[in-house]
């Protein structure tokens, strides 16, 4: 059973989004995603200062199996990236919702949950894949 914290929002492409309450959100990949990918061995982080529209590919994670794009869940500008993942991509497997965060976006719009799935809706996405 994959872990889907109740205080986060989600995308159909398996990113999670945490509202930091200050006009920024933190983004990572879900427990389900890290488990499906297998051992992560490489992360290509976005550049700080770059802006993305919602659903733009903005980062890449590579597992022992394959490369996967990470999409911006909402429109915004990258204000921070988790450089620690460069040397320790396995953190994405070990702690996907904590130390394994990937980047932070400063929102363009006002709604940090615009177009996102709540935990129940994301659970249904995961169930449908099983």
């Amino acid at each position, binding site marked *: 059973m994959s872990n889907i914290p109740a205080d986060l929002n989600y995308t159909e492409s398996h990113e999670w989004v945490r509202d930091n309450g200050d006009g920024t959100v933190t983004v990572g990949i879900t427990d389900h995603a890290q488990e499906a990918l297998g051992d992560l*061995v490489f992360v290509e982080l976005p550049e700080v200062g770059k802006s993305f529209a919602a659903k733009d590919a903005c980062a890449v994670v*590579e597992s*022992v199996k394959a490369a996967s794009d990470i999409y911006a869940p909402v429109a915004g500008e990258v204000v921070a990236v988790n450089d620690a993942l460069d040397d320790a991509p396995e953190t994405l497997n070990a702690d996907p919702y904590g130390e394994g965060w990937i980047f932070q976006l400063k929102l363009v719009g006002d709604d940090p949950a615009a177009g996102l799935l709540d935990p129940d809706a994301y659970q249904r996405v995961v169930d449908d894949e099983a």
Partner: protein
Amino acid sequence: MGSRTPLYDAHVALGAKIVPFGGWDMPLHYGSQLDEHHAVRRHAGVFDVSHMQPVDVTGAAAKPYLQYLLANDVNKLQAPGRALYSCMLNEHAGVVDDLICYYLEPGRYRPVVNAATADKDLAWMHDKASKFDVSIKRRDDLAMLAVQGPAARSLAEPLLPAAVRAAAMALTPFHAAEGDGWLIGRTGYTGEDGFEIMLPAAQAGMLWQGLLDAGVAPCGLGARDTLRLEAGMNLYGQDMDEATDPLAAGLGWTIAWQPPERNFLGRKALQARRDAPDLPHCVGLLLEGRGVLRAHQQVLLGDSPAGEVTSGGFAPTLERSIALARVTPAAAAAGHVAVDIRGKPIPARVVKPPFVRNGQPKLEL
């Protein structure tokens, strides 16, 4: 649903992630592919390779038949118990499959072919046997386990049948011992010491559990792939196929040109290509920039296309990305190339495989 090996339920009970592979439902990993890889390099791991297809070729003409069928020469197997790696070619010298052929006794050989190609291979073998007095029989009654790693043989020893134990422990590499319906080869696909064991399917569960109880790690197809890549070994369907001849796949060393009168399938086509000046080279690549090499990425020399990655990935032992690639002679000679990774040229060094043998890196990082 694919075919299932006698150990399928044991894999599921261990929490394996099961994936389709060559028509079979096989374990990809049991939690961490990286941990399984390291277990084989440092201690011992066991793979269920029962999807591989042993075939018994028997009869008075078994030897001349195999000398016609295979690009390597079974005449090199001068004593029973010896094994030979070979390609099986079509008339155009394309690789129908690669296999290991065990010589069991005069008039009895056992080639072991790949799972995904087994039906095609058997049809091919039957088709080419019409002029020979041979019988060709699939051994679907056998299971096959590969136990690999520096501690593999000693941990397997007490689990081998008494009738064949001493002979198995005395084997030198690429030799095999047979007894009680088991065939134990000191062979493998990881670059480590170990055994590949064929045994009656009904006994597979006992051997599997015995190995786990002895501390041998269960390993899936994922680790099998990273281990063979580090060992510089080709994977059929990825590094070569029917559109590739063995010269273009870095397998020239497996072609027995002598004696010249041995007329094996594909020989004529191969001979015509043998001296071509533009014959591609098969090389290893070590990625010097950041990223992961993957099959089908383009190799660049300067700004120009100079070949293709055939197998690539992350090498857990080296903690770097490596690949096997088919490149132009100029790229092979250049020593340094680039690989197009998502539109960016990332520098890579040309190296000679293997990358890792017996737990040790074989190149400067």
